[in-house]
């Protein structure tokens, strides 16, 4: 199959938060399917370290206390959190018999993640992360990674489990072909669980797209998928399609047919499924 993705290393952004641990579970599931290696990355936020040195630095804990920051305290907290993240990665990876490695870096979180991507084939990241108290939409880090990274990004959340069926949005772009190939591999265990979302303005165009999809799948030995027309492609129609199909994962080619980040963000607010953005 053309555009066959070679996913050998999956980068997992870890900070030991429930959201990132959920992302870890999903990454492990994906790694099992793709026989890939898990690479955990914990970033010590340089901004936090810098602020901690300020004389008036205080932490407002989640329980509502205000506490002065002692010298070295934040570093110790980072180390403890990194240890927890590493343990979690080891536990999950060993349980699934996956190869894994773990690294810690210090810097701007998004920048460090993006810096690590050239060696990676896919990155999983929790949707939320930057802003601690906002519970919906897209976090700062996720937004930055989406904007700058060139590899597939799997966006996950605390309540989101990677599952089937896989819904693939297909527009005949190269990214869409990669997305189709990933969807095919993810649904290999249950061949009936691949749904291809098509968008076109005319019946001829639709037929053409279907033909292309069939050719790609036939090349890989796949069966006829289920097709679903989504028109126009927007957050509302996509989330409706996901709800109707009981989607376990939505794979979107990027540049998306969604119009810009705001369109994607609007989709993520509505969608309660993991989303894989393919470049």
């Amino acid at each position: 199959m053309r555009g066959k993705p070679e996913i050998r290393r999956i980068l997992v952004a870890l900070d030991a938060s429930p959201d990132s641990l959920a992302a870890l579970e999903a990454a492990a599931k994906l790694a099992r399917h793709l026989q890939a290696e898990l690479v955990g990355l914990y970033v010590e936020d340089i901004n936090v370290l810098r602020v901690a040195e300020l004389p008036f630095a205080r932490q407002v804990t989640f329980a509502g206390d205000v506490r002065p920051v002692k010298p070295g305290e934040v570093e110790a907290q980072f180390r403890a959190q990194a240890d927890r993240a590493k343990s979690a990665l080891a536990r999950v990876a060993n349980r699934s018999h996956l190869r894994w490695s773990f690294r810690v870096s210090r810097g701007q979180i998004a920048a460090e993640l993006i810096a690590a991507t050239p060696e990676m084939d896919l990155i999983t990241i929790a949707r939320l992360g930057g802003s601690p108290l906002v519970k919906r939409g897209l976090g700062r880090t996720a937004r930055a990674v989406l904007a700058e990274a060139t590899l597939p990004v799997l966006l996950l959340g605390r309540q989101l489990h990677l599952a089937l069926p896989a819904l693939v949005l297909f527009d005949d772009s190269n990214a869409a072909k990669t997305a189709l190939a990933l969807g095919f591999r993810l649904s290999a265990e249950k061949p009936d669980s691949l749904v291809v979302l098509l968008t076109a303005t005319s019946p001829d165009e639709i037929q053409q797209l279907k033909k292309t999809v069939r050719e790609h799948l036939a090349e890989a030995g796949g069966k006829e998928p289920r097709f679903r027309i989504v028109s126009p492609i927007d957050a509302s129609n996509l989330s409706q399609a996901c709800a109707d199909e009981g989607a376990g994962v939505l794979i979107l080619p990027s540049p998306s047919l969604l119009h810009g980040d705001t369109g994607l963000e609007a989709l993520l607010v509505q969608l309660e499924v993991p989303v894989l953005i393919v470049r």
Partner: protein
Amino acid sequence: MPSVKCLPPEKLSRRCDPKQLTFETTAELHHGPEIIGQARAVEAVQFGISIEHDGYNIYALGPTGTGKQFLVEHALQAQASRRSTPQDLCYVNNFDDATHPKRLSLQAGTGVTLKRDVEQLLEEISTALPAAFESDEYQARRNAIEEEFEQRSETRFAKIQQEAEARGFTMLKTPVGVMFAPIKDGQTMSSEALADLPEDEKQKLQADVEDLQKALQRALQELPRWQRKRRHQVRQLDHETTEAAIGHLLEELRLKYEALPEIVSFLEAVQQDFTEHGRDLLHAEEKAGNGAQSSAAGTLRTSLLLRRYGVNALVDHSESMGAPVVFEHNPTFHNLIGRIDHISQMGTLVTDFNLIRPGALHRANGGYLILEVRKVLQNAFAWEGLKRALKAKEIRIESLGQALSLTSTVSLEPEPAPLEVKVVLLGDRFIYYLLCALDPEFEELFKVAADFDDVIDRDPQNQQSFVQLIAALVNREELRPFDRSAVAKIIEQSSRLVGDAEKLTARTASIVDLLREADHWAGTNEHDVVNENDVARAIEAQVFRSDRVRQRLLDEVLRGSIYIDTDGDSIGQVNGLSVLKLGSFTFGRPNRISARVRIGKGDVIDIEREVDLGGPIHSKGVLILSSFLGAHYAPEQPLSLSASLVFEQSYGGIEGDSASAAELCALLSAIGETPLKQSLAITGSINQHGKIQPIGGVNEKIEGFFDLCKARGLTGEQGVLIPKPNVQHLMLRHDVVEAASQGEFHIYPVDTIEQCLELLSDLPAGKRDAEGNYPESSFNQRVDQRLRAMTATQLSWARAARQEDNDERQA
């Protein structure tokens, strides 16, 4: 010549003349009750059943096979059918304290109906409730609550974030909370950059940070309150949804049972608990049934609801007519008072009210419970459990661990059920008297003793009843009809079984055995009707199956290994008779008893006693005959003999005094040096005046000696001396009677020792005259003279010894 005549053949066995019976076969007869006699027991049982007061439970005592169970069951069934059917017993969850399940006592039949209704209700609820929670209405209201909360918190935090950004700060997440970082040139400000700031800016920054921190702190502190409020709103919504979904379903049941306040209050408790916990239960079910198919999930959901809201109908009387009569064959502690089962769940044992199991007392409550006392006593703590329930008049279900305070783990303590039951214990007399002696509570709780006799008088009326009993048993056992000769034979055998010509056995079990076996032989002989020969064959077969030991002993006598003479004369030697009981088979055997005398101090040594082979009654017999000896002969002189008595070739224990007459004869023969006939055997005990007293097992004893004589060839001289009172017990075998009628064997009824001596020696016994002397050549004179001679000899020895002493002293 002996004054005692042998008994005529008609005295040797009381025959039942078939001609007296006015029927051809039992098929013509009206079936009588399957019990006979027992007027005392019947009255006691009737009294025990009808009296209403506490403690009037019944103990039916008597030997096995006397019809105790039959009589008790029939009497109880008759009484039970006249009484009202007791209430059903159910247990339901106690929603306030699940360890104390609540009891519902309901009109007969209502328990099962309620159980079914509640099951139906729960099935409906298990569909209606999830549907209500999945409905658009519920989801919309739920989302609205969640949305409101999210909106409120987000608005609050977004405002703080905006405020921070407006003041030149950004919010940073740390591992434990949030920090506000001042921004300079798009970067968080370093401490160096801060140090370069003028003091007033620094102070402003610090003041801004403090403001922001306070604002965030207030927002975070309010968060739990908002969450609490959200939870409360969600719970309220859940309650309303549950009420709406199940209210009308419960209302239908409430209306159906509105006349029964117990059920109404149970249904109200169900509704209240459902409102509180229904949603949680569904969540639990979702977890437990994760991955299950939808139909399986529905079943699982119903079963989860049943575990909490179901009805455990412990005792169901929906099909009972009258009071229950329960026979508990395995009266263990838990089978009597009920038990609480446990099931294994995730490696631990758990229980609830559904696992309460009834005991026999629950099933018999309001009626009658029959138990075999031996089994009750054999089962650990069953007796104590039964007494405790009867005394407390309630059934408290608890494990043995709880009852004995061995364990203190939390388990169920179901509300006790009031107990009103009449218990009938079946058992033998020994246990009854033992319980009377050893258990002070026994007589308090079992005031009525129904004493079953094992024999009844053989009078015409009872004989007629007995015939009807046979007809009833033949009918019950579905046997071939018995003709009158067979019935007559069975009547004779009934007397024989109790060893008494004037009695019949009341142990119907042994009669039933004989009937079945006679029927079997009739079948073998291709008879349509069981006749006398079939019955005789059955009796012979019974004996043959059991008489291996008897035959071996007889063989050893015939082979000369055991010395028993059946002709000729011997001094100091007589044939005594003993009875052996092996299992249910009893037989007699002759024993040689011998005596030796010498000069001595007047003591009679019982060799059996000396070696601890003689029982106390046997020793008593020997002491009595010593006393007779001292008083009867030369009473004015000291007894100067030393005698020894022995049961020859006896290697087991000897008990009973039925050989004391034989022992006295042997002793007197030894003293008087007068030979006794070995063709006769003697049985009977003796008193101090020389009177012969009756003994047991007379038939077997006579037959034991007869069999030996017959095997060696009857001479016409042989026979047995028996106590006169035992004549009424004679039910001898046909061949013995036949030999007697031919003059080949003789049975002599004797009253006194003198009669025995005359028969055994052919000498007159002799009566003491006015001077105290016995007639010349009489048996007694020989004994008397020998004793006097022994005394004289001893005196001369004593004088000589004294003389010798004096001589020595003078010297």
